[in-house]
């Protein structure tokens, strides 16, 4: 029986709400977009990615009950995933700005051009790797943050970081599909769509693992909320149907027909909606195991 405040039983996590969900979504989209843009050599994508990550970080500051103390958040990287995540965002921002400036210069001042890596000097490739690792940390840290919460078994699973990374890549890809790809656009668009199909299938596997490996009572309650309870609409409609299955279909048709930009655009929007829903349901579905 689910516990009310003064009875024994599991209870839903209600501490973190929409501001945290939006932060996770924006930071995830930004970091995923940065990684994909890095691979494509696409400064415009990297710039948009930086804006998204910083926007997400700003929402996190707004969510603080004492924002004037926000600078203290980096004080315990030895144990706190919030500290580590904030530091990774700071490192990512600095490296990202440097990399965007140098890559734009290499591309003759055009941000909307997809650059081939053969033309990029060695030191810039090293910078790319380091900034890519920083972006990956930003993508992963919410999964590790939730995964470290011992009292919420749905979150404290090896699947959390994997789900958040897959979500970051899918959301980043969603944004990328909405951006003008400039020169080499057809090749880049094809690559994005192929990657999108792979990422979506991976996320299906991760979601199935999450649903079917629920052992602890609190996790089963979480899964029931997703499949039969108050979160079933965002789960089935928002995430599965509109967020994964429909864009998967659009991407397959678009690849098969090498058609117009309409289907990739529509896929991009739906993928973003789906990943926002994923973060919403993961945060809201967290249930504290009964203390007794």
């Amino acid at each position, binding site marked *: 029986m689910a*516990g009310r*405040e*003064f*009875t*024994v039983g599991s*209870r839903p*996590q209600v*501490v*973190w709400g929409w501001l945290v969900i939006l932060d996770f979504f924006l930071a995830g989209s930004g970091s995923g977009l940065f990684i994909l843009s890095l691979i494509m050599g696409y400064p415009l994508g990297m710039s948009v990615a930086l804006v998204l990550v910083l926007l997400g970080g700003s929402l*996190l500051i707004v*969510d*603080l*009950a*004492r*924002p004037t*103390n*926000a600078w*203290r*958040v*980096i*004080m*315990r990287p030895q*144990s*706190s*995933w*919030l*500290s580590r995540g*904030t530091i990774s965002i700071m490192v990512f921002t600095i490296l990202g700005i440097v990399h965007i400036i140098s890559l734009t210069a290499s591309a003759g001042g055009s941000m909307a051009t997809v650059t081939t890596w053969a033309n990029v000097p060695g030191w810039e490739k090293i910078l790319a790797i380091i900034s890519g690792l920083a972006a990956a940390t930003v993508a992963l840290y919410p999964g590790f*943050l939730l995964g*470290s*919460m*011992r*009292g*919420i078994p749905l979150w404290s699973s090896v699947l959390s970081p994997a789900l958040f990374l897959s979500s970051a890549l899918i959301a980043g890809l969603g944004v990328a599909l909405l951006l003008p790809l400039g020169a080499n656009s057809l090749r880049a668009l094809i690559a994005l769509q192929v990657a999108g199909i792979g990422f979506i299938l991976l996320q299906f596997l991760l979601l199935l693992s999450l649903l079917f490996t629920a052992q602890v009572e609190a996790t089963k309650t979480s899964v029931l909320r997703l499949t039969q309870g108050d979160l079933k609409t965002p789960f089935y409609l928002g995430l599965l149907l509109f967020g994964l299955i429909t864009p998967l279909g659009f991407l397959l048709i678009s690849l098969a027909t090498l058609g117009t930009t309409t289907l990739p655009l529509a896929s991009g929007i739906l993928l973003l909606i789906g990943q926002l829903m994923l973060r919403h349901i993961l945060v809201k579905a*967290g249930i*504290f*195991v009964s*203390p*007794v």
Partner: protein
Amino acid sequence: MHWGMVVDLKLCIGCNSCVDACKAENGTSPGIFWNKVLEQEVGTFPNARRVFWPMRCMHCQDPPCKQECPTGATYQRPDGIVLIDSNKCIGCKACMVACPYGSRDIFENKKGYFSEGLTPFEVQAYAKHVKGAVQKCTFCSHRLEKGLKPFCVDNCITGALIFGDLDDPNSEVSQALRAARGTIRLKEELRTKPSIYYLT
């Protein structure tokens, strides 16, 4: 020295005197309970009964709240008591999500219990609390400094709450644990190592 508590579940009658005492001593605002008593129904009719679980911060020896706190506001004293430096707290609530026992609250609303405004007691009590900071049971550390026990322990009418130094073999808590018929700590599988033991 390691401060700890023993709760005798056979003596707890769920009167909530400890809850009221904590509120009186620490002046917590409406909706915030540093101390709670959870009810549990066990058995089936006609042999159903209720068990009462007094809950507060477990002052864990491996506190997940301290691990997740990004500012170092949550810290642990050498005597085992886990406290919060409110001036360092940023109100991110990571510790509230990290605590498996639901022991923490955030002081965000300075409303009092009565519609006519804050009482003189509330004015004085709220002055000790930092708005936007997380707060929780402190094992009445301000009373411990004076050689007194936590107020909830002093006010327990059945003697279900026993407090003392777990490292002292002659303390009340150590004697109670030695004489115990059965002892548990809550959610031990989460590796928090609580300092509160329950006698079953």
